[in-house]
């Protein structure tokens, strides 16, 4: 009994030691969804891309939407945690680890979706051996691989203290192989002043690095669209617009993650309303920026009303009416109202708003990608409805679901391997407070 109390790890992260029945059921469920996704993937490989809803006009569908979406939420960690770290924001500690995990996990999933669009996966290595630097796709390959690398280092540096704590902890009943992994990963960190100083410096540098890399990656992603001449895509605002939309969706996913882990791992004492409001205010500011950029983009298209822009806007307000309203009206106004008016600022409200924001931003990417491809310069004259209008098929939806499931699964497994809140940092803070008291 005495021992158990002494282990702060047990208090902060009981899930490291054991998995509940519900936990196992959750993992099995996720594996089932992923399994179905794999089945869908093999359908696509063996029957050809014909099993998707994509055709010669709409050559990219929900795969690329998911690609943008997952790359977007990955900037939650990069930009939010990086900025909070650099500004030494006091409340950041309990939520920063989650933000970093969101980054790394979604960075692993995002690029998989663009691979699903590729007609010949067996020739994928051509991107490396025959890569042309003139192509924005090559820029993307370079930028994303740099980003994955940088974000991994940033996460690892932030984890180092906890890995050392896990290595030194004698109370948790952990299998010896895990102990050995912790020992190897902790790199002999003992918390000596010199080590601390070095670690802090390295983390500062990486925080600044991941912020800039994240901005570059997302701009490059936007340029894949805006370097083309397609109506609706050929826009100078796309770079910054995509960056803002990315951080915005990231902040919303962070709030949802906070809510889930707080609930599941009983972290109510550490992740409080204060944190929800703080991240909520970040989300509010980003919502305002996002709304401004969206308005600016569509206003100029609509006011000048070039023929093809006009056709595109007509299409948006007809066939894409509800996605357009949800993503560009509700998705902007809801956080402004819910977080902006103190009366509405409850943990539940902020979380529900975040869910709406995530859906809105997914739809935002959808109405950026699909309507433009459905309204090219030369009108689509085709007798086959599926070649004129895009509808995602079950294969695409299954892989979409599988992507979300992989995200949840990796998050669940990560939270079982290392504490989801930075235990060591919080312990130090608690000690300081004790001294003060």
């Amino acid at each position: 009994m005495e021992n158990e109390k002494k282990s702060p790890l047990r208090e902060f992260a009981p899930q490291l030691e054991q998995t509940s029945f519900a936990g196992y059921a959750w993992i099995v469920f996720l594996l089932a969804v992923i399994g179905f996704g794999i089945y869908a993937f093999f359908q696509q490989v063996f029957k050809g891309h014909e099993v998707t809803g994509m055709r010669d006009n709409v050559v990219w569908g929900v795969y690329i939407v998911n690609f943008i979406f997952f790359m977007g939420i990955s900037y939650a960690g990069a930009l939010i945690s990086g900025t909070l770290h650099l500004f030494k924001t006091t409340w950041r500690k309990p939520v920063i680890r989650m933000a970093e995990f969101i980054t790394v996990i979604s960075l692993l999933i995002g690029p998989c979706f663009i691979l699903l669009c590729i007609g010949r996966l067996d020739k994928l290595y051509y991107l490396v051996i025959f890569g042309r630097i003139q192509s924005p796709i090559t820029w993307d390959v370079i930028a994303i691989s740099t980003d994955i690398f940088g974000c991994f280092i940033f996460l690892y540096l932030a984890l180092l203290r906890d890995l050392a704590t896990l290595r030194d902890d004698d109370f948790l009943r952990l299998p010896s192989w895990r102990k050995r992994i912790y020992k190897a990963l902790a790199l002999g960190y003992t918390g000596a002043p010199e080590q601390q100083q070095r670690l802090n410096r390295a983390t500062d540098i990486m925080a600044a690095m991941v912020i800039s890399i994240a901005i570059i990656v997302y701009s490059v992603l936007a340029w894949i669209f805006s370097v083309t001449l397609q109506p609706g895509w050929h826009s100078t605002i796309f770079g910054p617009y995509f960056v803002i939309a990315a951080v915005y969706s990231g902040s919303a996913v962070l709030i949802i993650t906070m809510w889930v882990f707080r609930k599941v791992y009983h972290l109510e004492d550490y992740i409080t309303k204060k944190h929800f409001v703080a991240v909520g205010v970040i989300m509010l500011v980003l919502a305002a920026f996002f709304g401004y950029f969206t308005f600016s983009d569509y206003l100029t298209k609509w006011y000048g009303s070039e023929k093809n822009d006009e056709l595109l806007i007509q299409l948006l307000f007809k066939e894409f009416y509800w996605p357009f309203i949800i993503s560009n009206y509700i998705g902007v106004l809801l956080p402004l109202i819910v977080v902006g008016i103190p009366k509405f600022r409850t943990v539940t409200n902020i979380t529900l708003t975040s869910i709406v924001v995530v859906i809105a931003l997914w739809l935002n990417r959808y109405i950026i990608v699909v309507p433009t491809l459905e309204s090219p310069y030369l009108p689509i004259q085709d007798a086959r409805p599926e070649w004129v209008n895009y509808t995602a098929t079950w294969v695409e939806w299954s892989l979409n679901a599988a992507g979300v499931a992989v995200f949840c699964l990796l998050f669940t497994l990560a939270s079982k391997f290392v504490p989801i809140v930075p235990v060591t940092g919080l312990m130090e803070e608690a000690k300081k407070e004790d001294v003060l008291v």
Partner: protein
Amino acid sequence: MEEQSNLNKKNSRRQFLKKGLLAGAGIAAGGGLVSAYVDTNATESGKKVKVLTTGGEIMEVDRGLLKLPRVSREESHKGLPGRKFVMVIDLGKCKNARKCVEACQKGHHLPKSQEFLKVYLLQDSEKTSPYWFPKPCFHCDNPLCVSVCPVGATYKRSDGIVLIDNERCIGCKFCMTGCPYSTRVFAWKHYHEFDEDKEPYSPEASSPGKEGTVSKCDFCPDLIRVGKVPYCVSACPMGVIYFGDVDEDTVTNGTETYQFSQLIRDRAGYRYLETLGTRPCVYYLPPVDRQFPVDRGFPDLTEEVKSRYKDTPYSRKNKP
């Protein structure tokens, strides 16, 4: 070197005017074994055509024995020296007979769902007159599709032709979004038509097709090499499509030959969506002095093709 190429050009112009495109293309091809052009399994037809031997001599070969050359992938990167191809489409003569589409499909072993050449029913604005608009690849001089390709699978040659090497293509489809003219098609599955072609693949033939790769109109460089005009040009019963060489300043539809610059000047030739800055190599002659009313493009169509045009402003207005 320059002298040589000038000589080639001069020579080629003389030959061109004399014997059509044949000799010019032959000289430009710079030789190659005659055997490469002769199909030993075929039967003689009695008609002779001229091809160029490795030694630079012109030889007569029976047309029935003639096999289109399939140059290697490396060779296909080099344009025919001293040439710059151009196409002129006379919109005043098109009546949507679709022979161009059929010949192209057959020549490139394409399935129904992959058309290198499409015929649109366009109407620029409400009060202006509708017209039939055959659209091949424009083989732009500033091709965005080539710029955006991450692996160099699509390339611009010195003779102006933009080709795709489907051995190199990874199927990312970026070129398809890059092209503002919706020219490129994707093989969404393996079509059985691809199997009809037993010859080895060459980017110049764009055949046999391959699942998961992009393809498009190629200006038929394999035909040009043996002195023929592209499939669509020779198939058109109205002589709508002219093909030729900007440097030689000559275009022909097989029966009539014009001076390119004069034709463009006299008939107010233009390039489609010039404002986009892609600098196409395909010119259009405006739909004036029509030989046929637009309606003539409808009666002979299959139901499937007819229904493609049902959503055009013209068809909506003229509903039976």
